[in-house]
């Protein structure tokens, strides 16, 4: 231990971060004043982007290191409270910060599977893993597998799974970074990705885990402030109480009332009827192909002729000409377009989804499937939490086993603050839309609607379908991401708070990406290079190799991101299922069951991971089209995101069966298990903590 004692160190940290928080708030206040004095919005966006990235870079530079223990596990002296904050930031990604409230807005009760899954998993971490991994105290998760089960084979499978899960996850994060940067600064998506990437790299590149830890604490503070301010404000506006989490029950009741009213409202039914008609029309046209192709085209041509003959206004003629120009080039393209039209219209023919009702569905079978999918998502997110290497790694960084346990508590506490606010935000936003937006006049839409409608049609579209001049709910299409991004404006806050929210989203995405990239680079440099390829490598060389790999991995991830590989939430969920299937059974049995053998672990990891990947590759449409796999019927109707629901049990079973068939582990391995089970054993000469 260095000259500074742990308690002095803790006091110092508290001082630094209090100054930092005060400084950050001052910065926001100054920008707010500047806005009042007429600073253009674009520059406020730039200020936030540049200032926060410089800040993270600054922490990175100050924590630069070439020491192995500092680089991989932050010197193992991160106090529980701060490790909790860092884990919180590491944990909460763009999907949590921006996507979560939107998902809840769109899917109501069923979306809560993510809220539960992404918090409840910490119970497994606390009770089954964190204290034991801390006692073991090496650098990575494959380290533990290698030591417990012996040999490089298990370690290699661990390396493969760690990289696979982290890589899928990091792609989703970089995607989020690009999205936020481009939206708030007007830069192109591709450039946004690389600006964000620079921010990620500066930090993890220079100081490894040490720099990442201290940056993540800073990022947590920004993201939680940014999340809370608008929600609290919106709550005051609607209920007069600044604690949205306590009072949104009454808003939920009002929303449920409004849902009933909107379901039976004749105007709403009229609009839904129009969409039903459009869906039927599209279906009829598809059915009549290929004849309908020529007929439809002729209809358009006739219309133009007719308009021209009647000397209609130039605007109408232009519009008609444009539809003819956009008309599909051949019957095959027409079929695709009409099918898309049909699906879009079909999606808008139903009444509003009841927000508070669990598992709505048209019949008992649909409701049961919805329930199993809910349970499936909860299961996979929880076991994935307790298996994702970038999270488990964080518990290597505390000074002791006891601190590791306390640190899981703080981790979940800090995560909980955001996750129990998100459902409140979703309900408050929904109330705003149902009560205030619906029924307002098209000539006089609220300012936030006008702004966001202009920014991006995928976030918000409102068209007066039945031409009555009033907004019906069925005329609005909302993209989930808008909920968090637009809340400051809905609540009537100045633009500077919107900038703050963007900075918060960026902090969430960057911090997670940092942790993930570090995990991947460590798996390659520490596990693969040092432990398997070149055990004689000097420490400086190992750290340098890790840094180079970090750069390479980041560039590859950015390249994959630029291909836009599908839905963020699915990618994130897939990472959880993969990690759960590959790691969870082997880790837990390795600690709690001395009889678990090397071959059991190998077979179990391969079987769990294999089954999980098989299910995803054969049920997720994007993968089916990428890899040319044959689609299969979903087992028990479970969505591909929940593939871990099959992978985890199969992994457990396989490890148990194969372990029983192979000879018990040797004396040393059994002693290792005892060693990790007790924080201290007097007379225990075994040292596993990597100290070099």
């Amino acid at each position, binding site marked *: *231990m260095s000259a500074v*004692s*742990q308690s002095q160190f803790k006091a110092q940290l508290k001082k630094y971060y209090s100054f930092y928080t005060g400084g950050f708030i001052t910065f926001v206040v100054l920008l707010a004043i500047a806005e009042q004095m007429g600073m253009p919005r674009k520059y406020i966006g730039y200020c936030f982007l540049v200032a926060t990235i410089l800040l993270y870079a600054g922490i990175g530079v100050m924590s630069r290191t070439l020491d192995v223990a500092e680089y991989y596990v932050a010197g193992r002296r991160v106090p529980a409270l701060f490790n909790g904050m860092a884990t919180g930031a590491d944990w909460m990604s763009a999907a949590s910060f921006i996507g979560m409230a939107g998902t809840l807005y769109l899917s109501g*009760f069923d979306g*809560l*599977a993510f*809220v*539960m899954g992404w*918090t*409840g998993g*910490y*119970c*497994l971490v*606390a*009770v*089954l893993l964190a*204290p034991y991994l801390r006692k073991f105290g090496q650098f990575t998760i494959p380290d533990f597998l290698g030591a417990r089960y012996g040999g490089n084979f298990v370690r290699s499978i661990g390396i493969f799974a760690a990289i696979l899960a982290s890589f899928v996850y990091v792609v989703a994060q970089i995607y989020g970074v690009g999205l936020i940067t481009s939206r708030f600064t007007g830069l192109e998506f591709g450039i946004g990705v690389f600006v964000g990437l620079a921010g990620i790299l500066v930090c993890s590149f220079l100081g490894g885990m040490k720099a990442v830890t201290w940056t993540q604490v800073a990022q947590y503070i920004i993201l939680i402030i940014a999340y809370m301010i608008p929600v609290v404000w919106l709550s005051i506006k609607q209920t007069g109480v600044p604690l949205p*989490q306590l009072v949104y*029950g*009454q808003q*939920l*009741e009002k929303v449920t009332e409004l849902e009933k009213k909107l379901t039976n409202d004749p105007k709403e039914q009229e609009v839904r009827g129009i969409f039903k008609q459009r869906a039927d029309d599209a279906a009829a046209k598809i059915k009549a192909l290929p004849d309908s192709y020529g007929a439809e085209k002729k209809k358009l041509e006739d219309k133009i002729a007719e308009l021209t003959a009647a000397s209609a206004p130039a605007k109408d003629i232009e519009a008609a000409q444009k539809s003819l120009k956009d008309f599909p080039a051949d019957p095959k393209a027409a079929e695709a377009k009409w099918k898309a039209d049909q699906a879009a219209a079909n999606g808008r023919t139903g009444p509003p989804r009841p927000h*508070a*009702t*669990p*598992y709505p569905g048209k019949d008992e079978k649909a*409701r049961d499937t919805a*329930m199993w999918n*809910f*349970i499936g998502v*909860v*299961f996979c997110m*929880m076991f994935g939490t307790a298996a994702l290497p970038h999270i488990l790694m964080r518990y290597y960084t505390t*000074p*002791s*086993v*006891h601190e590791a*346990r*306390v640190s*899981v*508590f703080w981790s*979940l*506490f800090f995560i*909980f603050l955001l*996750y*129990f606010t998100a*459902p409140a935000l979703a309900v408050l936003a929904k109330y705003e839309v149902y009560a205030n937006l619906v029924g307002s006049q098209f000539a006089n839409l609220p300012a936030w609607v006008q702004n966001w409608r202009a920014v991006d049609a995928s976030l918000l579209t409102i068209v007066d379908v039945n031409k009555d001049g009033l907004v019906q709910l069925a005329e609005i299409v909302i993209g989930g991401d808008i909920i968090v991004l637009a809340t400051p404006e809905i609540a009537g806050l100045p633009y500077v708070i919107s900038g703050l929210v963007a900075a918060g989203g960026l902090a969430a995405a960057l911090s997670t990406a940092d942790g993930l990239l570090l995990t991947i680079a460590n798996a390659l440099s520490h596990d693969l290079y040092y432990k398997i390829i070149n055990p004689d490598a000097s420490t400086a060389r190992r750290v340098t190799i890790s840094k180079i790999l970090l750069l390479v991995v980041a560039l590859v991830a950015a390249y994959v991101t630029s291909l836009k590989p599908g839905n963020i939430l699915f990618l994130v969920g897939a990472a959880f299922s993969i990690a759960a299937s590959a790691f969870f059974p082997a880790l837990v049995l390795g600690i709690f069951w001395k009889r678990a053998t090397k071959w059991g672990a190998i077979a179990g990891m391969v079987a769990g991971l294999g089954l999980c990947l098989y299910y995803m590759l054969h049920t997720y449409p994007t993968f089916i089209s990428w890899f040319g796999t044959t689609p299969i019927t979903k087992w028990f109707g479970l969505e591909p995101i929940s593939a871990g629901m099959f992978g985890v049990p199969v992994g457990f079973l396989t490890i148990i069966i194969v372990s029983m068939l192979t000879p018990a582990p040797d004396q040393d391995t059994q*002693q290792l298990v*005892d*060693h990790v*089970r*007790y*924080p*201290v*054993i*007097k*007379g*225990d*000469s*075994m040292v596993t903590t990597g100290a070099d």
Partner: protein
Amino acid sequence: MQLTEKHVDYWRKNLRISAILLLIWFVVTYVMAFYARELATINFFGWPLSFYMAAQGSLIIYVAIIGYYAMYMRKLDVEHDVAEGEEE
């Protein structure tokens, strides 16, 4: 390295508390989710009970489980002579 009776006792108590806490965890998570439709008819300060549990109640219980485990184990560490010193 020799495990004493005290050590064995420590591990047994640890397993017991782990099992109890994970049982609570299982009930508030999966049993709740299974019966969510039935629980939705109960009103809890404005929320349907299942909605409240999924959005807040179970989360608070998770935090409590982990906090209790850390405290309980600290005591157990000290009682069974396996606790770490303040400065490691």
